[in-house]
Protein backbone atom coordinates (compact mmCIF):
# COMPACT_ATOMS: atom_id res chain seq x y z
CA UNK A 1 0.00 0.00 0.00
CA UNK A 2 1.14 3.53 -0.68
CA UNK A 3 0.00 6.50 1.38
CA UNK A 4 -0.54 9.82 -0.39
CA UNK A 5 -0.80 13.10 1.48
CA UNK A 6 -1.47 16.54 0.04
CA UNK A 7 0.01 19.79 1.30
CA UNK A 8 -0.81 22.89 -0.74
CA UNK A 9 0.31 21.97 -4.23
CA UNK A 10 2.62 19.14 -3.21
CA UNK A 11 1.65 15.49 -3.03
CA UNK A 12 3.79 13.18 -0.92
CA UNK A 13 3.82 9.51 -1.85
CA UNK A 14 5.13 7.06 0.74
CA UNK A 15 5.30 3.47 -0.53
CA UNK A 16 5.56 0.79 2.15
CA UNK A 17 7.09 -1.78 -0.15
CA UNK A 18 10.46 -2.11 -1.84
CA UNK A 19 10.88 -0.33 -5.18
CA UNK A 20 12.09 -3.41 -7.01
CA UNK A 21 11.05 -5.31 -10.13
CA UNK A 22 8.20 -7.18 -8.45
CA UNK A 23 6.53 -3.91 -7.42
CA UNK A 24 7.54 -1.36 -10.03
CA UNK A 25 4.45 -1.77 -12.24
CA UNK A 26 2.21 -1.05 -9.24
CA UNK A 27 4.32 1.93 -8.20
CA UNK A 28 4.54 3.32 -11.73
CA UNK A 29 0.76 3.07 -12.13
CA UNK A 30 0.15 4.91 -8.84
CA UNK A 31 2.48 7.71 -9.83
CA UNK A 32 0.98 7.90 -13.30
CA UNK A 33 -2.51 8.19 -11.77
CA UNK A 34 -1.42 11.19 -9.71
CA UNK A 35 0.30 12.86 -12.64
CA UNK A 36 -2.68 12.33 -14.93
CA UNK A 37 -4.84 14.05 -12.30
CA UNK A 38 -2.58 17.10 -12.61
CA UNK A 39 -0.52 16.54 -9.47
CA UNK A 40 2.91 17.37 -10.83
CA UNK A 41 4.73 18.57 -7.72
CA UNK A 42 5.56 15.20 -6.18
CA UNK A 43 7.55 14.13 -3.18
CA UNK A 44 8.41 10.45 -2.89
CA UNK A 45 9.26 9.53 0.68
CA UNK A 46 11.36 6.36 0.83
CA UNK A 47 11.19 6.14 4.62
CA UNK A 48 9.55 2.70 4.56
CA UNK A 49 11.52 1.34 1.60
CA UNK A 50 14.30 -1.15 2.30
CA UNK A 51 15.53 -1.90 -1.23
CA UNK A 52 15.67 -0.31 -4.68
CA UNK A 53 16.90 -1.88 -7.91
CA UNK A 54 17.49 -0.68 -11.46
CA UNK A 55 13.79 -1.09 -12.33
CA UNK A 56 12.93 1.14 -9.38
CA UNK A 57 15.46 3.73 -10.48
CA UNK A 58 13.89 3.69 -13.94
CA UNK A 59 10.44 4.41 -12.46
CA UNK A 60 11.81 7.36 -10.47
CA UNK A 61 13.48 8.75 -13.59
CA UNK A 62 10.30 8.26 -15.63
CA UNK A 63 8.34 10.08 -12.93
CA UNK A 64 10.86 12.93 -12.97
CA UNK A 65 10.58 13.24 -16.75
CA UNK A 66 6.76 13.18 -16.64
CA UNK A 67 6.37 15.85 -13.95
CA UNK A 68 9.10 18.03 -15.47
CA UNK A 69 7.41 17.92 -18.86
CA UNK A 70 4.24 19.13 -17.14
CA UNK A 71 6.02 21.97 -15.35
CA UNK A 72 6.31 20.16 -12.04
CA UNK A 73 9.08 18.73 -9.93
CA UNK A 74 10.13 15.58 -8.13
CA UNK A 75 11.84 15.41 -4.75
CA UNK A 76 12.93 12.10 -3.24
CA UNK A 77 13.26 11.91 0.52
CA UNK A 78 15.62 9.40 2.09
CA UNK A 79 17.99 9.20 5.03
CA UNK A 80 19.29 5.84 3.86
CA UNK A 81 23.00 6.30 3.05
CA UNK A 82 23.03 3.30 0.71
CA UNK A 83 20.21 4.84 -1.31
CA UNK A 84 21.88 8.24 -1.35
CA UNK A 85 25.09 6.67 -2.64
CA UNK A 86 23.11 4.71 -5.24
CA UNK A 87 21.38 7.87 -6.51
CA UNK A 88 24.73 9.61 -6.68
CA UNK A 89 26.65 6.92 -8.58
CA UNK A 90 23.74 6.54 -11.00
CA UNK A 91 23.70 10.35 -11.37
CA UNK A 92 20.03 10.60 -10.46
CA UNK A 93 20.90 13.51 -8.15
CA UNK A 94 21.82 15.57 -11.21
CA UNK A 95 18.23 15.45 -12.36
CA UNK A 96 15.98 15.69 -9.32
CA UNK A 97 16.35 16.67 -5.69
CA UNK A 98 17.39 14.06 -3.14
CA UNK A 99 16.87 15.31 0.40
CA UNK A 100 16.71 13.94 3.92
CA UNK A 101 13.56 15.90 4.72
CA UNK A 102 11.47 18.76 3.37
Amino acid sequence: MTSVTETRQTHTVRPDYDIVASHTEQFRAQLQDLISQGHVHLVIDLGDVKMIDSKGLAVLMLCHKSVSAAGGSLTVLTRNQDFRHLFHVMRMDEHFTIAESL
Partner: protein
Amino acid sequence: MFDIEHTPDALRITMSPSFENIDRADDLCAQELDRRQVPVNMFAVRILLREAALNAVTHGCREAPEGQVRVALVFATDEIKLIVEDNGPGFVWENREAGFDVTGDGGRGLPLMKTYASQVTFNEAGNRVELSVRHELTPPVGCVI
Protein backbone atom coordinates in the same frame (compact mmCIF):
# COMPACT_ATOMS: atom_id res chain seq x y z
CA MET B 1 10.35 -23.95 -8.51
CA PHE B 2 12.58 -22.60 -5.78
CA ASP B 3 15.14 -25.11 -4.51
CA ILE B 4 17.68 -24.28 -1.83
CA GLU B 5 20.93 -26.06 -1.02
CA HIS B 6 23.08 -25.13 1.95
CA THR B 7 26.72 -26.31 2.02
CA PRO B 8 29.49 -25.29 4.44
CA ASP B 9 30.88 -22.78 1.97
CA ALA B 10 27.86 -21.76 -0.09
CA LEU B 11 24.17 -21.12 -0.47
CA ARG B 12 22.80 -22.32 -3.79
CA ILE B 13 19.37 -21.55 -5.20
CA THR B 14 17.78 -22.96 -8.34
CA MET B 15 14.60 -21.14 -9.30
CA SER B 16 12.05 -20.41 -11.97
CA PRO B 17 12.51 -17.02 -13.61
CA SER B 18 10.18 -14.60 -11.84
CA PHE B 19 10.54 -11.27 -10.05
CA GLU B 20 8.97 -12.80 -6.93
CA ASN B 21 11.70 -15.45 -6.84
CA ILE B 22 14.34 -12.71 -7.05
CA ASP B 23 12.78 -11.24 -3.89
CA ARG B 24 12.94 -14.65 -2.17
CA ALA B 25 16.56 -15.20 -3.22
CA ASP B 26 17.51 -11.72 -2.00
CA ASP B 27 15.83 -12.32 1.37
CA LEU B 28 17.54 -15.70 1.78
CA CYS B 29 20.98 -14.38 0.90
CA ALA B 30 20.58 -11.43 3.28
CA GLN B 31 19.59 -13.82 6.08
CA GLU B 32 22.56 -16.06 5.32
CA LEU B 33 25.03 -13.15 5.31
CA ASP B 34 23.58 -12.00 8.60
CA ARG B 35 23.68 -15.49 10.15
CA ARG B 36 27.31 -15.99 9.13
CA GLN B 37 28.19 -12.42 10.14
CA VAL B 38 30.13 -11.91 6.93
CA PRO B 39 31.90 -8.52 6.98
CA VAL B 40 30.68 -7.26 3.61
CA ASN B 41 28.59 -4.36 2.44
CA MET B 42 25.20 -6.07 2.60
CA PHE B 43 23.56 -3.53 0.27
CA ALA B 44 26.26 -4.17 -2.35
CA VAL B 45 25.71 -7.93 -2.29
CA ARG B 46 21.94 -7.54 -2.39
CA ILE B 47 21.86 -5.13 -5.31
CA LEU B 48 24.37 -7.26 -7.23
CA LEU B 49 22.22 -10.33 -6.70
CA ARG B 50 19.14 -8.47 -7.82
CA GLU B 51 20.73 -6.98 -10.94
CA ALA B 52 22.36 -10.23 -12.04
CA ALA B 53 19.15 -12.17 -11.40
CA LEU B 54 17.08 -9.52 -13.21
CA ASN B 55 19.28 -9.92 -16.27
CA ALA B 56 18.93 -13.70 -16.07
CA VAL B 57 15.14 -13.53 -15.67
CA THR B 58 14.37 -10.84 -18.25
CA HIS B 59 17.13 -11.22 -20.87
CA GLY B 60 18.39 -14.76 -20.30
CA CYS B 61 15.16 -16.68 -19.75
CA ARG B 62 12.86 -13.94 -21.07
CA GLU B 63 10.57 -14.91 -18.18
CA ALA B 64 9.73 -18.21 -19.95
CA PRO B 65 8.27 -20.69 -17.44
CA GLU B 66 10.66 -23.43 -18.57
CA GLY B 67 13.63 -21.19 -17.85
CA GLN B 68 15.89 -21.80 -14.90
CA VAL B 69 18.10 -19.44 -12.91
CA ARG B 70 20.84 -20.62 -10.57
CA VAL B 71 22.24 -18.36 -7.89
CA ALA B 72 25.25 -19.29 -5.78
CA LEU B 73 26.54 -17.24 -2.88
CA VAL B 74 30.00 -18.62 -2.14
CA PHE B 75 31.77 -17.69 1.09
CA ALA B 76 35.52 -17.44 0.45
CA THR B 77 38.21 -16.43 2.96
CA ASP B 78 38.30 -12.76 2.13
CA GLU B 79 35.41 -12.22 -0.23
CA ILE B 80 31.94 -13.24 -1.34
CA LYS B 81 31.48 -14.69 -4.80
CA LEU B 82 28.06 -14.34 -6.31
CA ILE B 83 27.45 -16.51 -9.37
CA VAL B 84 24.25 -16.16 -11.39
CA GLU B 85 23.58 -18.37 -14.37
CA ASP B 86 20.58 -19.05 -16.59
CA ASN B 87 19.77 -21.66 -19.19
CA GLY B 88 19.00 -19.14 -21.92
CA PRO B 89 21.08 -18.68 -25.06
CA GLY B 90 23.03 -15.77 -23.54
CA PHE B 91 23.77 -12.47 -25.21
CA VAL B 92 26.65 -10.19 -26.06
CA TRP B 93 27.53 -8.31 -22.91
CA GLU B 94 30.10 -6.20 -24.72
CA ASN B 95 27.25 -4.43 -26.53
CA ARG B 96 26.15 -3.07 -23.18
CA GLU B 97 29.57 -1.76 -22.23
CA ALA B 98 29.18 1.55 -24.04
CA GLY B 99 27.67 3.30 -21.06
CA PHE B 100 24.09 4.15 -20.34
CA ASP B 101 21.69 7.00 -20.73
CA VAL B 102 21.14 8.43 -17.25
CA THR B 103 17.60 9.45 -18.15
CA GLY B 104 16.78 6.29 -20.10
CA ASP B 105 14.40 3.49 -19.20
CA GLY B 106 17.01 0.74 -18.93
CA GLY B 107 20.66 -0.19 -19.16
CA ARG B 108 21.50 0.42 -15.50
CA GLY B 109 22.16 -3.21 -14.55
CA LEU B 110 25.72 -3.52 -15.82
CA PRO B 111 26.86 -0.11 -14.52
CA LEU B 112 25.47 -1.07 -11.11
CA MET B 113 27.35 -4.36 -11.17
CA LYS B 114 30.58 -2.57 -12.04
CA THR B 115 30.00 -0.05 -9.28
CA TYR B 116 29.31 -2.48 -6.47
CA ALA B 117 31.49 -5.49 -7.38
CA SER B 118 35.26 -5.61 -7.10
CA GLN B 119 35.29 -7.93 -10.11
CA VAL B 120 32.71 -8.76 -12.80
CA THR B 121 33.32 -11.73 -15.11
CA PHE B 122 30.98 -13.04 -17.80
CA ASN B 123 31.37 -16.34 -19.57
CA GLU B 124 31.71 -16.35 -23.34
CA ALA B 125 28.09 -17.28 -23.98
CA GLY B 126 26.87 -14.42 -21.79
CA ASN B 127 24.58 -16.51 -19.59
CA ARG B 128 26.78 -16.70 -16.50
CA VAL B 129 28.20 -13.86 -14.44
CA GLU B 130 30.54 -14.07 -11.47
CA LEU B 131 30.70 -11.10 -9.13
CA SER B 132 33.14 -10.62 -6.27
CA VAL B 133 32.67 -8.48 -3.18
CA ARG B 134 35.66 -8.19 -0.89
CA HIS B 135 35.28 -8.31 2.85
CA GLU B 136 35.33 -4.93 4.49
CA LEU B 137 38.55 -4.35 6.37
CA THR B 138 38.32 -3.97 10.11
CA PRO B 139 41.22 -2.67 12.18
CA PRO B 140 43.03 -5.37 14.18
CA VAL B 141 42.29 -5.52 17.89
CA GLY B 142 44.40 -2.96 19.73
CA CYS B 143 45.03 -0.88 16.62
CA VAL B 144 44.99 2.85 17.35
CA ILE B 145 43.80 5.07 14.54
